[in-house]
């Protein structure tokens, strides 16, 4: 954490220091849901600063692949290797500590305001500061003290993006990050991903829409 006070340096994104994660490698992953094979023989490798865009029709297993990587789902076959700080991370539970998750559900509680939601997740994920800045960067400052039940789908997505920034995890797994967002929101996502890559972060993004970033592509047939 030696570089905490030096913005602009490698590892520093949006005011948050990322723990080191060198690479993630998936070999011949297979997934079975409800007794049906969703995909098999999926392999990829990502290093620091790289992003992977996962494409495929509805039901091709994009979300399942992200859940496999996060360790929220057990693979039916194949292996996932993650190496962090120079040594391999074996346990799926251990792998979770490097993952920044943005699912297609927003995890926003109707009764809590965006500010309260972010304060909760910041404390849960390790007491990081910069809630006001995170709200500002996704243009949610005006709605920051409104209960989430009054937010639109796009605003809830922005809240989830702010949470992703605050959590300071090096491997982002994004499931349809552009859904429900307007043009400005989509630019925010692309800018976040570029800043994340510059800081040495990794990202796997499942999306149907074009995303203006440098990324490898993986197609799930």
């Amino acid at each position, binding site marked *: 954490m030696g570089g905490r006070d030096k913005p602009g340096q490698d590892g520093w994104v949006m005011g948050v220091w990322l723990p080191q994660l060198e690479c993630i490698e998936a070999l011949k992953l297979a997934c079975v849901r409800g007794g049906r094979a969703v995909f098999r023989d999926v392999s990829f490798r990502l290093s620091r600063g790289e992003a992977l865009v996962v494409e495929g029709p509805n039901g091709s297993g994009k979300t399942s692949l992200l859940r496999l990587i996060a360790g929220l789902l057990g693979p039916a076959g194949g292996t996932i290797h993650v190496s962090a700080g120079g040594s391999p991370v074996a346990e799926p539970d251990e792998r979770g500590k490097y993952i920044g998750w943005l*699912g297609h559900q927003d995890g926003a509680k*109707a*009764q*809590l305001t965006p500010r309260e939601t972010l304060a*909760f*997740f910041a404390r849960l*994920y390790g007491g990081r500061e910069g809630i006001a800045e995170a709200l500002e960067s996704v243009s949610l400052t005006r709605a920051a003290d409104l209960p989430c039940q009054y937010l639109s789908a796009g605003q809830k997505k922005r809240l989830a993006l702010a949470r992703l920034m605050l959590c300071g995890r090096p491997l982002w797994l994004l499931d349809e990050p552009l859904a429900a967002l307007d043009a400005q929101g989509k630019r925010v996502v692309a800018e976040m991903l570029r800043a994340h890559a510059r800081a040495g972060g990794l990202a796997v993004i499942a999306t149907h829409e074009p995303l203006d970033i440098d990324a490898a592509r993986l197609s799930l047939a």
Partner: protein
Amino acid sequence: MSAFAALLARDLRLATRAGGGALLALAFFAAVAALVPFGIGSEPRLLARVGGGVLWIAAVLAVLLALDRLFQADYEDGSLDLLALSPLPLEAIAAAKMAAHWLTTGLPLSILSPVLALLFNLPPRGYLALVLSLLIGTPAVSAIGAVAAALTLSIRRGGLILPLLVLPLLAPVVIFGAGAVLAAIDGLANGAIWLLAAFSVASVVLAPFVTAAALRLNTSE
């Protein structure tokens, strides 16, 4: 510890804000207790005899009322994934949610119970035993209920199955709890309160581990 406190504080806040289950459980407890004298008549000696048992049954049902949403709400809005990927182990997550549930149902209900005991003409000797047995016993209801809530997580309308799973397991709590009140009224020392305490301690200690295992099973499916 900060992450544990954050989750506990969030759940307390959610339970006590509009739409939370805390006040509902308390109102249910009072309504059931107030209804019983109408059903069995106003014979003071009879009411004094059954008062402890009736309040105990009403308390168990009231605590169960909000339990099916314990993990379901977080499961449905995606928060459970975010909790699972946080630095907090699932066991601690389960413990925090159980604690929040007890603090918003079992605890206020124990404090309210002497007021309702007036309706039953409970002899003064029984009051301390009633409050004490509820304070000792209701954590076991929250703990065992949390296990069932985690087990029924992915079942639609799991809320209907939950009481069927839980009520048989809670028979010892009702037997020892109501037994302790009767023993105090009769001036006997039958050790029911100690057995209740033993049962409660065992439930509270073991439940977070069982709950975490059930959550893993349900979310990785």
